[in-house]
């Protein structure tokens, strides 16, 4: 009967275990990086499909008032769109020229501006339908869902949705690109132009004015 000498075996065993443990750790880290590096296209696509179906259902509901439609849309879109992140991306390099108080004020105003615009746009819906045509990864954080808006007798409108993946959370929409025209690029250019001409406070003043005006007209 052979017996292994206790001093050598455990030592060897430990080395192997250590190697295995390192390898496993390496694989895990790699796996984690891979999962971070590839946002889930399926999640993004499913989100756009589900949310758009609900939006269309709300918009085409004859039984509720515009006010009720608006409230339902705001409730629905609050999670799937990260308005704060959108607002920050729009500001671009001007974000860091503003202090914390100004930033918070801007974020609050941007939210009001977006909601006032949503309310004012409700009447534009005329029974258009919507279909998702594809989805793909476009950067280490983002997925792009492509879709078409179809209205009677007009060529289809190409609409792309850029979604950001976040660890363990549902993806959020950060940009809307209509026929190659991005909401973020457009507002960034516009807000940037106002900041350059009238300063950051000027932007806040303009936003406040536009919100009041839009509400009055509604």
């Amino acid at each position, binding site marked *: 009967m052979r017996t292994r000498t206790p001093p050598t075996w455990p030592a060897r065993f430990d080395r192997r275990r250590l190697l295995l443990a390192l390898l496993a750790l390496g694989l895990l880290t790699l796996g984690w990086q891979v999962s971070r590096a590839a946002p889930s296209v399926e999640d993004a696509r499913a989100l756009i499909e589900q949310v758009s179906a609900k939006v269309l259902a709300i918009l085409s509901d004859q039984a509720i008032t515009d006010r009720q439609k608006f409230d339902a849309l705001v409730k629905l879109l609050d999670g799937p769109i990260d308005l704060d992140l959108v607002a920050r991306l729009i500001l671009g390099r001007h974000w860091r020229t503003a202090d914390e108080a100004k930033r918070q004020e801007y974020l609050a105003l941007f939210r009001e501006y977006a909601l006032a615009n949503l309310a004012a746009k409700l009447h534009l819906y005329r029974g258009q339908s919507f279909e998702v045509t594809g989805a793909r990864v476009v950067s280490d954080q983002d997925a792009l869902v492509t879709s078409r808006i179809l209205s009677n007798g007009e060529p289809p409108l190409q609409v792309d949705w850029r979604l950001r993946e976040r660890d363990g959370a549902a993806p959020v929409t950060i940009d809307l690109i209509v026929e190659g025209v991005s909401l973020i690029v457009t507002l960034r250019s516009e807000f940037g132009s106002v900041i350059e001409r009238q300063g950051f406070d000027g932007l806040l003043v303009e936003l406040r004015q536009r919100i009041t005006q839009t509400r009055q*007209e509604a």
Partner: protein
Amino acid sequence: MAGDLFVEIVARRGRGGRGTAVLLRGIGGALVAAALLAVPAFAQDDDVNDPLEPLNRGIFQVNTVLDGLLLEPAARMYRIATPQFFRTGVSNFLANLSTPVVFANDLLQGEFQRAELTLGRFMMNTILGLGGLIDVGGKLGMPPRHSEDFGQTLAVYGSGPGPYLVLPLLGPSTGRDAVGRVVDLGFDPLTVLGAAGVGIFLDPTEFGLARTGTQALSFREQTLDEYDELKRSSIDLYAAVRTFYLQYRANQIRNGAVVESDDIYDENLYEDPDAPVQAPLE
């Protein structure tokens, strides 16, 4: 006519492959490098190439006033006075008339498949579609009509857009696109016939003017709602129209291909106060 581009959005939607354009790019690059237009490309957002901004803003104001006095009310009348099928017919007819320009530029860009589509649609629509009033090709399942012009051809050959320009009456443009407009006139049989003094039914020059007027009216009507919405929501209409035009043209030049990655989506880029300011794209 600040609505020039919105209109195009409704009227023409280009999509398709890149074809042999890549091959031509090398040859054309050398050709165009010599031209004035080899101005560095603008960065998409922070550093728009608009050296004439004060002048441009002035012309934009005048255009906006003229639009409000003439074109916009005319477009509203046109909408009220005519049924949708009539307006669709007019728009189809106008698009069919611009076929020679689109076809010539398809060829110049080496987009032979798209050239084939353009020509095929023209034949079908002209012969079966009452001289172009009906988009027979579209009804038979051809892809949506695409636009090409010499501004896009120059871009495919490597030219940057050059400075942003607001043209009196004509609206948003760039150095490159303004040159393109003039060259496109040369591809237009109406100009050629007009210059040769040939008239078949009508004097070609007068016909050309009438067509331009109808084009403006038709385009403005198609974009009434969108432009109203832009005017209502924007806090700097001039800047909004400028970026709209530049993005829309860039999209047309890419033939609708998607820009995948871009610094504008980097949420950390502007967080660190010591981070370098984004360099303008070259």
